[in-house]
């Protein structure tokens, strides 16, 4: 019996290996289209903000649409929503002042959601903004939504007990990062924060001390979701948010499953982007990314109308990509999440070294190391291609694999010794090995220093951190240069800790440019940001742009209408429907 068992085990192992071996990998069919050009604008025509949203071809009503995800959504309360899962789930049961009309192919238009237009810049100085609220917008109990409820929603986001959401609007209204002490929500529950007024039920008015030209973008985040004061359950709103969107929470088993039913009081005629196709949305939490994707690939039963929220993990990418039958069930799209090799400009003060790093970088090899073209796409600009006004350029053209000779020439025979600080997680370790090999070929001496994973982000954001290079990632909250370049490269904002400008780049001329462009009309800023992007890279090379993350998603054969949000890079469900 024993020898037989051994033979069987040996046979099984041999079988697995031969099965793996019998197909030759020729590298065919593994190209990804990355020529797509994104455009983003703010709607100037009020008609764009009118409902109903255009019908999705082939969509029909009915069915249950399932979303499988590994971890639960951290917050359902709109004012506390900031995670990608939350930002994608929230539009199903919340409406905002403005929202993005997104064709999933890079075409973005900012339109009014509850508001008739994406805001009126009253004095053209970006200090006073007015929003007119649409007629016929209602909560899930049928009561109308007025400017008072929207203002209350914004007011409650000042409550420190309800932290976790974006803080742009709060900081701008209070004109201070410590907005919650400047205006105490708990003591002033019946009044509104400074600068925020609702002169009549149809008008909401923002008055700021400084020009805030990005307000129409900022109120596209869930901070501007309306809420009735008597329906505010405080921290418990997280369990059951009060709906203003096409669906409402029917059942919420915390951490296991969230079930959304149709909201009969939502009127399609008022909504420019959302639909109400499935009878029910079910968010199911628990399965790992591997398990969820395998389930959706298997396409059995209820999983036929399901989508795996987590991207196809790198371990399954090759399997999914090479299966022609799966092609119609996958979505591949670049996201706005940009990764850079951040150079500590306080330590690496020699421009030639920074330029040499830019010439030396082997983006093709790096992308292979992180999992290939369905995980990452090369980028050479500071802003990702989804940014409004984006223009492609390469300030240091060196080909896909880098130009080692050009880098060596710039270094002039010197061997700069640089320390690369990396988190000790598997992903960054892989990148570190790749970068060390790559840069040492180009004449650098790279020391890799591991930083504990949970501490890495805090450590590299400290002003006097001891490392020369580290991996940085930035996913903007809205696709405007204003939420990328000044945040990451304005040297005047450098403080002791918690710097988003972790390159510690500071140049007075560039800082002046930031001020100039930020004071422009939002519609005119786009091309200016693109020009500044190029100027910063050409003159200063403060970082090495590496790649943008790519969303690679698989859905069941009956799940339709899913697309990758051009704003956040995760699947959007406003068009989702169940095919017959």
């Amino acid at each position, binding site marked *: 019996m024993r020898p037989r068992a051994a033979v069987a085990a040996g046979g099984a192992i041999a079988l697995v*290996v031969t099965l793996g071996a019998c197909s030759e990998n020729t*590298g065919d069919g593994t*190209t990804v289209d990355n020529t797509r050009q994104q455009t983003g604008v703010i709607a100037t025509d009020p008609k764009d903000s009118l409902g109903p949203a255009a019908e999705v071809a082939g969509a029909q009503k009915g069915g249950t649409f399932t979303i499988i995800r590994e971890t639960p959504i951290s917050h359902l309360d709109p004012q506390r929503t900031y995670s990608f899962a939350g930002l994608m789930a929230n539009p199903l049961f919340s409406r905002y002042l403005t929202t993005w009309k997104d064709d999933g192919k890079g075409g973005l238009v900012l339109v009014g959601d509850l508001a008739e237009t994406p805001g009126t810049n009253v004095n053209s100085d970006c200090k006073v903004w007015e929003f007119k609220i649409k007629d016929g917008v209602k909560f899930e109990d049928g009561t109308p939504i007025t400017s008072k409820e929207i203002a209350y929603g914004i007011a409650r986001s000042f409550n420190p007990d309800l932290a976790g959401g974006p803080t742009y609007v709060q900081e701008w209204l209070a004109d201070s990062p410590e907005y919650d002490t400047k205006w105490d929500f708990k003591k002033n529950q019946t009044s509104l924060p400074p600068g925020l007024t609702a002169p009549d039920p149809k008008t909401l008015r923002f008055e700021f001390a400084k020009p805030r030209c990005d307000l129409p973008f900022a109120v596209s985040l869930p901070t501007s979701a309306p809420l009735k004061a008597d329906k505010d359950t405080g921290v418990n709103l997280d369990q059951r948010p009060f709906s203003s969107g096409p669906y409402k929470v029917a059942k919420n088993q915390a951490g296991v499953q969230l079930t959304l039913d149709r909201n009969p009081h939502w009127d399609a005629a008022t909504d420019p982007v959302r639909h109400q196709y499935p009878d029910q949305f079910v968010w199911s939490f628990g399965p790992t990314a591997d398990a969820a994707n395998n389930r959706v690939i298997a396409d059995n039963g209820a999983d036929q109308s399901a989508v795996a929220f987590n991207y196809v993990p*790198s371990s399954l990418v*090759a*399997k999914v990509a090479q299966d022609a039958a799966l092609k119609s069930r996958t979505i591949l799209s670049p996201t706005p999440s940009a990764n850079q090799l951040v150079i500590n400009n306080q330590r690496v003060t020699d421009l030639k070294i920074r330029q040499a790093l830019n010439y030396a970088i082997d983006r093709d090899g790096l992308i292979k190391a992180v999992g*290939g073209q369905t995980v990452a796409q090369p980028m050479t600009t500071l802003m990702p291609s989804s940014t409004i006004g984006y223009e492609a350029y390469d300030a240091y053209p060196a080909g896909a694999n880098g130009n080692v000779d050009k880098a060596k020439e710039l270094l002039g025979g010197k061997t700069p010794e640089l320390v690369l600080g990396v988190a000790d997680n598997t992903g960054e370790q*892989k990148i570190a090995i790749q970068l060390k090999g790559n840069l040492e070929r180009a004449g650098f001496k790279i020391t890799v220093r*591991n930083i504990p994973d949970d501490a890495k982000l805090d450590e590299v954001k400290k002003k006097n951190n*001891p490392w020369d290079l580290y991996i940085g990632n930035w996913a903007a909250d809205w696709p405007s240069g204003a939420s990328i370049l000044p945040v990451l490269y304005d040297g005047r904002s450098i403080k002791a800790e918690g710097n988003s400008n972790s390159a510690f780049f500071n140049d007075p001329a560039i800082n002046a440019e930031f001020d100039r462009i930020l004071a422009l009309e939002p519609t005119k800023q786009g091309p200016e940001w693109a020009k500044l992007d190029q100027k910063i890279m050409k003159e200063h090379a403060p970082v090495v742009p590496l790649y943008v993350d790519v969303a690679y998603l698989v859905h069941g054969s009956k799940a339709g209408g899913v697309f990758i949000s051009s704003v956040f890079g995760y699947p959007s469900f406003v068009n989702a429907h169940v095919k017959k």
Partner: protein
Amino acid sequence: MSLSPVEGVALAEIESTGDGDGDAPKAKGFVGRSPGQLAWVRLRRDRTAMISAAMLVFFVLLAFAVPLIQALYGVGPREQFQDRLDGFGMPLGYAGGITGEHWFGLEPGLGRDIFIRMVHGLRTSLFIAFAAAVITAALGILLGTLAGYLGGWIDAVINWITDLTLAMPFLIIALALTPTVALRFYGQREAVPPAFQIGVLISIFALFGWTSTARLVRGQVIALREREFVEAARASGAGLGHMLFRQLLPNIWAPILVSFSLAVPSYITSEAALSFIGVGLTDETPSFGRMIYRSLDYLQTDPSYVFFPGITIFALVLAFNLFGDALRDALDPKSSR
């Protein structure tokens, strides 16, 4: 003639092979053999032992010959061949990119050669396991004999320390200690050299591994210390060193050797496990644990990446365990099945 019990057993075996002709030690065809020789004969007769021993010798030779193999093979453990990967970072060609130049194929993503990394990993793993086993055995023997022979308060203290060590959670301490120690000795801008990481691993194993040997040895020594030959030696005024190393130790080599041969494979797997949870070696140092950890992601898409390191560590540990069992059978025939 010594009254040592081991030799007594040996004598019994000689007598039995001599067909009960015990009173005629100089009988025809009768060869006097030391217990060591006897064990050797028994080991030679055991086919499993010989095959596993041959495998072990092969692995050890491989580990010693790493520079030579690298020179002949012509590929370094950190060299990358990303031009032989497709757009997903998967190796081109058959079975994970097996070619004449890359015998076991390439790693997906980074494109390093699996064969040369495995040979290097073999050396790392064997070095760590052997060093840890030798240190734990030495510590265990020293503390075990002292406790067993001297008894009294020394025995109580050593026993107490053993219990304390056994009660300490190995994984948690390993997880907490490894990064902290590196931070203590190396600055924020210095890389932690592989030799240091290996040293830390060996020390952690030594810190936790000596207890079983110490208990085993202590038990054996307690069983021996009241025996006649020990009493005789003590009565003749032998010193502590003589008592421990000339009288007691030679009689308990068998269990020590067996526990040593079984400790080595357990350290190989422990090293792999620690690297697996990220507290062992970093990715720069080739090691089995790291390789298997990284390869698991590719179980479905590149099974040969999992297969080669997996089968090698399996063969290595199996050979050690089989050899350890056979050694015990040979040294201690009374307990044979």
